[in-house]
């Protein structure tokens, strides 16, 4: 069907943009409703036959809402594309008119021809014919484009009013390519900032695994995308386990056994993440990587608004840490750490935005189990690169000009943290290593933090930072490395406000108690000190007590050591 110049003149791209915005809003509302329906907590706790029926109905409702959203999205894309094309046709026509005017010619809007203008009637006939030939060819091309655009627009309208079926939306044509995961997070941030809102939405919808795990993408976007991915990832992992169970192998070989174990482990990792997010509303899933590691899901969870926080802490677990076994405990700990840091900042008085604290539990590497791997630094070295990159990502996405970032590393995770910081480039201001078997460094300055900003803690009776560290497998014990400041793990009270909370904090004994609560419901002294560093309030930290009585005293003529009744560390 042909289109006249007169009709093109009446076209308005603005009207089409309105259609685009209206239908896009409709699509987003439908997707949001679908997400909301799928996450209704009632259907997680409701049991029995009625709940099965309800789940089935909810599943159908979700699919309907998703389908509706996809239809609205398809119409939105058609309207957006038509608006772009209309602007192009009108621009080409305006350029043609300008060129024609310069040559003394005009475009006839009704006849769709190029004619001599009033001032050009006395020109030589051959000259007029040559000008007409040149310009008419361009006008015909423009009108052919206009006819194509008109057809596309008609199709969009037919889709919108239901006269034509809407094809499966799929990724929109021209979706920007996502940078590789190893891209510098600062460059990723610039790339993200350069996208239009519609492009960001499309990438989050059609490239969620890449966007959700890309350091440099704003944390809120990653958390939203990864939370939405989680049910699908659980479904995929469950299907994998079901398939393996449905086809049992008589005598499986080692690789088949590994695949079976990996399938079960990854499903358990994902299910535990779902449970943890449900038990701790408000906690975000900053990393959900189901593919990089063959055995485990890698993840990071965050408490607080990471990108708008003035103080941010990242905790790395050590030996035996994995998502299925550790993420729930670590999440409770980062929440407690954040709460304590906020309280110290509130009590300090005069602190701007005292609540602007965020904490992250990073389970983004494979930590050794209780096996020979723990005697080797290979896993720490393998984890150091991703950790360094992640920390750079936190720095790249912050909206706070003077964000203060603290790295916490426990046990083998302290070695991973140390190696990550020694690689350079991570914008870390403070580091606290605790229960450390060693950091493979000879001076704290190698960590890249200012003097006095590197801390360590050795738990009462913890053999890892003493007995094991003294073996020297991972360098000297941190207590012997110049430049480190030791923090107390012993029972005692915090300083009174404004330099502390004045609360009693019990000692941290053994290798596992550092971030935990004591029997009195308060963080242990080690946890309190970590919160003080996180809070950016080093004056609130407690130093180890001086002149402690010896833990044992000699008894009898041979001096047999027995526990000292006055030793209360």
């Amino acid at each position: 069907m042909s289109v006249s110049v007169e009709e093109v003149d009446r076209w308005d791209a603005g009207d089409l943009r309105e259609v685009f915005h209206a239908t896009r809003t409709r699509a987003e509302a439908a997707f949001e409703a679908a997400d909301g329906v799928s996450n209704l907590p009632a259907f997680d706790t409701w049991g029995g036959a009625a709940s099965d029926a309800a789940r089935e109905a909810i599943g159908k409702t979700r699919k309907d809402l998703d389908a509706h959203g996809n239809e609205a999205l398809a119409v939105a894309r058609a309207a957006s594309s038509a608006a772009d094309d209309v602007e192009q046709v009108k621009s080409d026509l305006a350029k043609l008119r300008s060129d024609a005017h310069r040559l003394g010619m005009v475009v006839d809007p009704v006849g769709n021809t190029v004619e001599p203008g009033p001032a050009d009637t006395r020109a030589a006939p051959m000259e007029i014919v040559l000008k007409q030939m040149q310009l008419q060819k361009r006008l015909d091309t423009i009108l052919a484009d206009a006819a194509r655009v008109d057809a596309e627009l008609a199709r969009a309208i037919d889709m919108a009013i239901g006269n034509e079926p809407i094809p499966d939306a799929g990724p929109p044509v021209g979706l920007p390519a996502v940078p590789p995961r190893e891209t510098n997070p600062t460059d990723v941030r610039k790339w993200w900032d350069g996208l239009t809102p519609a492009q960001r939405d499309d990438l989050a919808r059609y490239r969620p695994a890449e966007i959700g795990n890309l350091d440099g993408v704003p944390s809120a976007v990653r958390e939203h995308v990864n939370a939405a991915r989680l049910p699908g990832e659980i479904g995929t992992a469950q299907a994998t386990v079901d398939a393996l169970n449905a086809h049992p192998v008589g005598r499986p070989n080692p690789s088949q056994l590994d695949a079976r174990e990996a399938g079960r482990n990854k499903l358990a990792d994902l299910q535990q993440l779902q449970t943890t997010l449900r038990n701790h509303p408000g906690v975000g899933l900053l990393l959900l990587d189901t593919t990089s590691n063959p055995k485990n899901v890698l993840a990071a969870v965050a408490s607080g608004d990471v990108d708008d926080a003035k103080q941010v802490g990242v905790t790395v677990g050590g030996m035996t840490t994995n998502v299925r076994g550790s993420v729930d405990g670590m999440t409770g700990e980062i929440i407690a750490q954040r709460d304590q840091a906020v309280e110290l900042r509130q009590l300090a008085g005069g602190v701007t935005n005292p609540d602007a604290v965020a904490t992250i539990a990073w389970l983004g590497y494979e930590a050794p189990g209780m096996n020979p791997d723990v005697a080797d630094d290979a896993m720490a070295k393998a984890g150091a690169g991703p950790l360094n990159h992640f920390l750079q990502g936190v720095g790249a996405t912050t909206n706070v000009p003077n964000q203060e970032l603290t790295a916490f590393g426990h046990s083998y995770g302290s070695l991973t943290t140390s190696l990550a910081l020694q690689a350079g480039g991570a914008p870390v201001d403070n580091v606290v290593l605790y229960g450390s078997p060693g950091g493979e460094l000879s001076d704290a300055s190698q960590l890249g933090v200012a003097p006095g900003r590197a801390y360590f803690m050795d738990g009462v009776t913890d053999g890892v930072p003493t007995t094991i560290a003294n073996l020297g497998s991972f360098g000297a014990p941190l207590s012997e490395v110049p430049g480190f400041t030791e923090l107390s793990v012993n029972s005692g009270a915090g300083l009174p406000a404004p330099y502390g909370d004045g609360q009693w904090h019990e000692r941290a004994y053994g290798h596992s108690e550092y971030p935990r609560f004591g029997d009195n419901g308060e963080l242990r002294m080690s946890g309190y000190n970590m919160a003080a560093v996180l809070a950016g309030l080093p004056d609130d930290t407690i130093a180890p007590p001086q002149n402690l009585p010896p833990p044992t005293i000699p008894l009898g003529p041979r001096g047999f050591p027995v526990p000292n009744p006055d030793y209360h560390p």
Partner: protein
Amino acid sequence: MTARRRTLAVVLTALTSVAVPSCVKDTAVNPYAAPDHTESDRLQKIVNDRPDLEVAQHELADLDGQIRTVVTRISPETAIGPSTPKPDHGCSDPFTHSIGDTVTIEKVYARPAPSDEQWRAITDALTPILTAAAFQANTPPGVTPPAGTFAWVSDDGSTVELIHNAGSVLAYGYSTGCRLPSAWRTDPPPADRRPADDSNVHYPYLYEPPGGRNG
């Protein structure tokens, strides 16, 4: 024996000697490991023996009202925001792996803080109230907390705390500690609150007879 094997053997021996004082306990080296069944049962019995969560909630809500009344009467200019329960479920150390729940309010930061004189009057007025409710100072025997810290704990795990920074802020919060909701004594917890490896749990949630846990 190569040097590497020797190092490995030494490390593992040392690790074992540290982690295994008398018998293997995962919790010695893994902060997130579940305690063994004996320890789990010991902790669960503590939770089971405490009054129900709703009872503690009611008691703390009553104390909350009295604390607010006292603060407002003595320091009327101090504005105390509402007591809002935290959204988190479950229990914290040492009851992380126990069956139970906790109600803790978001910390309230009241401003302007009472003067030192008003603060003394507030703590003097609250001490008999908390003592009557079977609370005691949350410090070891013989330890006197700093003047600005007024932290109390009940025998069954509830805590109340007020921390004062004169001229700046008064921090206030309370928690029930880990307890059983009353319904969990007669019916199992909701499906999403049961351990992932033990979906058939039921009261009294013990590994030993009369049972209730198998995971």
